[in-house]
Structure formats: structure tokens, C-alpha cells
């Protein structure tokens, strides 16, 4: 089994890959370490056959993906446990779960799942991979993929820290709230979003974290280039 550090890297690579191509620079940003450190660690991951480096990018191998899903499963189960059973707040459990995830054996994972009645998603709404490494497809698309004039409904807010979530909820943006994109600023700028009677300028970083489901009128779906960073 890979060390804790390597597990953290696999987890980060998996999550970045969900949103597009992974470059070592993104990893350095996410992990909060220097570029040389990332290069060294990627070397170790590659030596163990967990990742490949096509064209300087980073991609998980099959066994790397299994290992990543395993750690994500443990993380999300731990979060679920902390929120549902211990009653911690969902904006504080991410850091706690990072500690706890490394200590969960397959036996404990199974017991937790049974105890919590087989939860399908973590408290933030992300799917929990199964013991055999299967994961439900993520529904919805990021708000920033909508074109101006399109309407949608908020599905979830991909924000582990919870800060954005509580801020958006004070503005009345919850999962389930209908939103409409009125305008998109040039050069991948912010979006002008109508919620209820108010309009907000929402930066692309934030809009990338708001997953929506298109509702009402049929709308063309634009091809995604890259993804939000």
C-alpha cells in the first residue's frame, strides 16, 4: 500500500483529472508544495506504476486509479461518519477526514457502511466509491459551462472547505435553487447570474464549483475546453 503522502497525491490527481488535464503545476498549487517536490514525488508514483507521464502531464494508471478510488472511498466514508454519527458540521469535516482516512481498514470500512445504511454520497454530495472500486458518474455540469441566456438548477456545491457554501447560502443559493446566466464577460471572465430578484457577478473559479443541472428549456451544450482552474 502506498504511503500517506503518495495517497494524498493520488487523491489530488484523481480530483484534478475529473476537471480536465492534470499538469504538475496544478498539483503543486493544490498540495501547497514546490514544483521540485512534486516532480520528485511523481517520480516515486511512476516507479510504482501508479501514474504515467504523457507529454509532461499526469495520468493515473489502472492500479493508480484503483488506489485513488480506495483512498477517496475512505475519505468520504470518514466524512459521512463524522457528520452523520458524530454530528460535526460539514464545513469542518474535510480536514478531520484527511487524518482519519489513513486508519480505516477494509473491515472497518465495511462495518461503517453497514452501520450508516450504505450511504451513496459524502456530506458534500460527491459519490462514495464502492469496495470494488466503482464510482457513480457525477451528474451535472459546472455553472461556468452554461452560455448566456441558459437556465439551470443548482445540484451541489463542490467546496470541501464549506466557506463558499455558507456564503452562497446567505445569498439564497442552495442546491435546488434555479439560476439563469444573463451574461458572460469576455475572455473567460465572470458570469452574470440571476437568482430570484437579484443578479450576481460570479467569478469563473466560483462558477466552476457550482454544479448545475439544466432544466426547463432545451439548451445547447458547449464543448468544454480545458476546465476551470
Amino acid at each position: 500500500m502506498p504511503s500517506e503522502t503518495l495517497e494524498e497525491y493520488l487523491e489530488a490527481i484523481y480530483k484534478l483529472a475529473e476537471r480536465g488535464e492534470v499538469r504538475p503545476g496544478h498539483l503543486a498549487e493544490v498540495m501547497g508544495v514546490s514544483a521540485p517536490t512534486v516532480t520528485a514525488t511523481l517520480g516515486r508514483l511512476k516507479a510504482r506504476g501508479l501514474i504515467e507521464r504523457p507529454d509532461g502531464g499526469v495520468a493515473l494508471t489502472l492500479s493508480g486509479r484503483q488506489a485513488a478510488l480506495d483512498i477517496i472511498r475512505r475519505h468520504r466514508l470518514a466524512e459521512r461518519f463524522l457528520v452523520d454519527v458524530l454530528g460535526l458540521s460539514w464545513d469542518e469535516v474535510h480536514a478531520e477526514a484527511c487524518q482519519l482516512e489513513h486508519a480505516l481498514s477494509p473491515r472497518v470500512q465495511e462495518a461503517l457502511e453497514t452501520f450508516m445504511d450504505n450511504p451513496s454520497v459524502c456530506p458534500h454530495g460527491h459519490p462514495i466509491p464502492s469496495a470494488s472500486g466503482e464510482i457513480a458518474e457525477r451528474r451535472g455540469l459546472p455553472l461556468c459551462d452554461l452560455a448566456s441566456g441558459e437556465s439551470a438548477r443548482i445540484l451541489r456545491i463542490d467546496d470541501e472547505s464549506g466557506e463558499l457554501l455558507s456564503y452562497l447560502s446567505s445569498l439564497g443559493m442552495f442546491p435546488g435553487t434555479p439560476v439563469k446566466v444573463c451574461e458572460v464577460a469576455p475572455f473567460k471572465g465572470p458570469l452574470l447570474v440571476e437568482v430570484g430578484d437579484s443578479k450576481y457577478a460570479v467569478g469563473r473559479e466560483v462558477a466552476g464549483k457550482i454544479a448545475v443541472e439544466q432544466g426547463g428549456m432545451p439548451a445547447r451544450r458547449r464543448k468544454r475546453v480545458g476546465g476551470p482552474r
Partner: protein
Amino acid sequence: MSRSCDEPGGVLKRPEGDIVIAIAGNPNVGKSTIFNAITGLGVMTAHYPGTTRAVHTGTARAAERIVGVIDLPGTYGLSGNDEDARVARLALLDLVPDVVVVVVDPVNLARTLYLALEVLDLGFRVVVAANLADEARRAGIALDAEGLSARLGVPVVPTVGTAGTGVRAVVDAAFEAAGTTPTRSPGYGPDFEALAEPLVRACRDAGCTPGGLPPHAVALALIEGDDVMAAQVDAQVVSVASRVRSAIRSHFGEDASVRLARERHGLAGTIGDAVVTRTGEKRRLPRDWWALTTWPWTGVPLAALVAGAVFAFLFFAGAFLAGVFSAVWQALASPGITSVVEAVAGDGVLSRVLLWGLDAGIEASLSVGLPYILVFYVVLGLLEDTGYLNSLAFLTDRFMHRLGLHGRAIIPLVAGAGCSVPALVATGFLPTKRERLIASTLVMFIPCSARTAVILGAVGHYVGWQYTLLVVGIVFVMWLSIALVLQRILPGESHGLVMEMFPFRRPSFRRVMAKAWDQFREFLFVATPIVVAGSLVLGGLYENGWLMNVSRPLEPVIGGWLGLPAVAGVTLLMGMLRNELALQLLVVLAVSTAGYAGANITDIMSPTDLVVFALVNTIALPCISAVAVFWRRNGLKRTLAVVGASIVLALTIGGIVARVLPLLGLE
């Protein structure tokens, strides 16, 4: 109430008064105009330790009684880690106002009531001020104030803050409410309240009332996941709270804190629907064409037009007004000051030195302050009041992001090309300390109109337009490099943007003037004394003939490295006071050095010298007023760093240019 008033241990203190009221409200509902209408101008500004949001406090006299007033930062809610919300919450819990006036907007009642419910939930006595009543009427919206009052259980007063209407009634209602028991919030959905009940009971039984809060308030804060609250209650209550949160989660299928926010929005929406009637014949509002400010095809040209207009206005109208002011000063104030000084200090060196400070110094400060700075604040205030600044921020956000900034930072940067001082003050509304630091540092390196005037006067007039472009180009490349370096070396990243976009509003002259004056005071009282003191020192050096002595130690740098004549070094020093003076002084000193009237600068300086002179004057040392304002906002250390960096950069670039230009064939 027996709430213990913990000393916040910082600068922000509970204002004195028979009663203390706090004013809370969403951004842009006219909270500050109500604050200003109550307090007049006797206002203090304070910071909470560890935060950068300024909180205004003030006192007012109403019918023999004294009211202390706290103006909380504009915020959408009280929970969460957003700085405005945090400061508002801290100030409420620490300063314990007797009454909280929550300002709501009838046009947007449901959303603005959310905050009122949060304040009620904390167990405060509340008076609701339904502001912008005039605008609501125009938008065809009628508010049933009595109905709202009945539903919330608190007094509701319609106000028009800009005209001062209803403000007196708000203060009276606050006095009346001050003695009463706080109203409990109307209560949320029965399922939610039933699930929360065990926690409320546990809080009551344990008798734990941190900060004197009622049990229901403590329970709701615990459900929200408030760590500070959790640390102040018994372990047993904390465990009940965990169980209740867990129960709420499994009942509603979402986190307890989100559920509570949803319940609040739901209740606010129900109340809003019940008390607001929208009359059918809603007039076509200017907000329809206002959308053109954000539609890229029209918005971008419009933004360029507005930025150009602001710049041109500062450049031309400012220069014109400065000329008028100078003439008036010379005709009226100057002779008076001169005769007073000469009557007191005689007709010698002493009086001439005093005149440097009291006549020229005050004139220098005011002739920048009144025409450029006050005028700029009025223009900026108009743009802000109509809501246009937000449209501009929306369009430029992407570009500003590259510089580690926020869309709204475009305003100070454009303003900086006019005058650095108002631009520095304008950085104050940026949301994080990091952005304020980056923006204010960048402003210090943008050539203001006075420095541009030297480039045009020295290089454009005597050397040629190609070299003017060269100087401007060098300065621009340097500026961009500084921006990119700052973005890398300052830790943190710019916040994701979530900003409310306001529909067009008719600007209020009173509001704009009040705000402009409020900001102008900072310049007047901070910069003027420093400029006067600086002028006295320079005057002392000049009148005693020591200026050349002072510049002698600089000779290796000015003469040896930059290749400039000694007089140029003197004028660069003087330029600190007012950058545009550098050129005038150079002309004066050129005459005295060459020894005959009508002498030209070109007699003592080569074209290369003039280019180097303009570059160094542009890059080194922003004027002393700008340094004073920067110092006040960013502290001594950063000021020294910026001033030091500007000198080093100026000398490096100047020295290199002085060596390269002759190689290219310029004399």
C-alpha cells in the same frame, strides 16, 4: 440585559450614549446614509483587531439624550467566514448594542429580511428601517409596514436615508424598544423547530448563556456549527447539539447549517410575499438599458470611454481648476499670509522659510487636493452610486485577475494616472488586504498627471515624440513587471468573485457629496501637515543656500552614474514635494546656473540628460502626499520598501539608459 461586555481588546469600542444602536444591512441598501443622517459628521473609524474592515462609530443627540451608533459592515448574513460577516457578528456580540436597526430594501425584501431574522435569532432588540421607500414607489412596489411589523414582532419604519426622511422616527423607535424584552424570531418550520427543541431545552437547563444570549439563540448558533459558541458551552450541551444536528441531517437530507439557512430564506420569502404588493403598471425601468453596461459588445467600448473620460477629466479639468485655484490663492490668500508672517517674523530668512511652509506648502497641498482629489471623489462617487462600478468590475475581472487583483481594482489604477492620492484611497474598498496592498503598490508606480507633465515638458518638448514614447514604454514595462512580481511574492490568491450587481440607480447628490467629503478629509488632515513640514525643511535648506551642500553627497550618483548636472539632482529632490515642480525648478535653476536670463534647459542638459531626468523623476519617489497616504494605509515597513524600490529602480534604469542612448546616437 445582563450581558457581560467583554472588552474587544482592540481599537473598536462601544460608543458612549444613553443607548447604543448598531446599524446592520446588506451592501447598498443605504445603511451608511442612515448612519450619516443620524450622526451628522462626528464620526470615528476603527478596526477590529485582526481584520481590515473599518467600522464607523459615532454619537448623536436626540431630544436631550445621547445615542451611540455603530455602523456595521454591509453584509448578507452573519454566519460564515466572509470578513464582513465575521466583523459584523463580532461587533454585535462584543459591543452588545441595546438595539439593532436592520436596514431592508422593499424592492428586495425577501433577501434583505434574511439578515433581520439572523439578528433576531441572536436575541437582539430590532427596529427595521424599510429604506429606499421612494425608489420602491417608483418601481411600483408597496410595502405593508404594519403587516411586516406584526409578522416580525418589531417596529418597522419607512425611511429615505438620502433625504433624512424617517430617520428621526427610527431613533425614537429605538429609544422605545431599548427598555423592552427582545422579541423572539417568528419561528421556523414545525419539523425544524421540533428537532431543535431538545437542544433549546438543554441550553436552558444547563443555564449556559454565553454572552447573555437566550437559549434559543445559543441553540441556533450551535446548529449552525459556530465553533466559538461551542467552546463556551458545557460538554453535555455540545453532545446534545451533535445529536440534534445529526437528526436534522437525516430528516431533511442536508446539513443542519444549510437547512437553517434554507428555513430562514423560506420564512423571509413567505413574509416578503405577504407584505409586498407589486402594482401591475410597473414602469419600464432604466435597468433594461442598464444591461448594455455588461453586454460585452457595448460594455467594453463604454468602459474604455468612461475610463478615458475620467482620465481626461482629471488631466484637463483638474489642471484648469488647479490654475484657477492658484490664481485665486496668489490674489487673495498669499498676500494675507505673507503680511501676517512678515509682521510676526520680520523680513528675513526666517520669514521666507515660514512662507515656504505656510504659503507654498498649504497651496501645494490644496492645489492638488481641491481640483484633483475632491473632484475625483465626486466623479467616483457618481459612478459608484449609479452602480456602474460593478458593471466595470464585471467586465475587467479577468484581466485584473492576472495581476492578482479583483475587477474593482481597475478604478484606482485608472485614477492613478490622474493623481496617486485619490487612487490610493480608492484601493480601500478592495475586499482583501492582499489586493489592497498590490493595488496601492501598483498605484505608486503609475505616473500621475504631474509626472506625465514632466515627461511631456522635458522630453516631448525638447527631445522629440519618439523619445516620449520610449520613456512611457519603459515605465509601462517596468510597471507590468512589478505587477507580475508582486503577484508571485505575496502569498495567497485573489478571492473568487461573487458580487451583487445593482440595477441602475439615480445618483443622489447628497450621498455623493457626503461620501466625497468623508474621503477627502483623510487627505486634508493626513497629507497637508506632512507637506507643510516638508516644505519648511526644503525652504530652510534653500533659503540658507544649503541645498547645493545637501546635493553634494549625491554628486557621485547624479553626476557619476546618471551623468546629470548638479542642478538636476537638486530639482529631483525638490520634485518629491510636487512632481510637476521639478521641471519649473529646473528652468529656474538653469537660468541661475547659466547666469543669464532666457537661458534654455538645453544649454545645460543634453537630450540624453533630459530623457534620463524624466525617467528618474517619473519612477523614483512618488510625491510626498502620496507617500504619506500610503504610509498611513500600509505601515512604515512597506512604505520604506516601496520608496526604496522606486529609488533603486529609477537609478538602475536611469543609469542604463544614460549609457545606452549615446550608443544609439543620441547626444
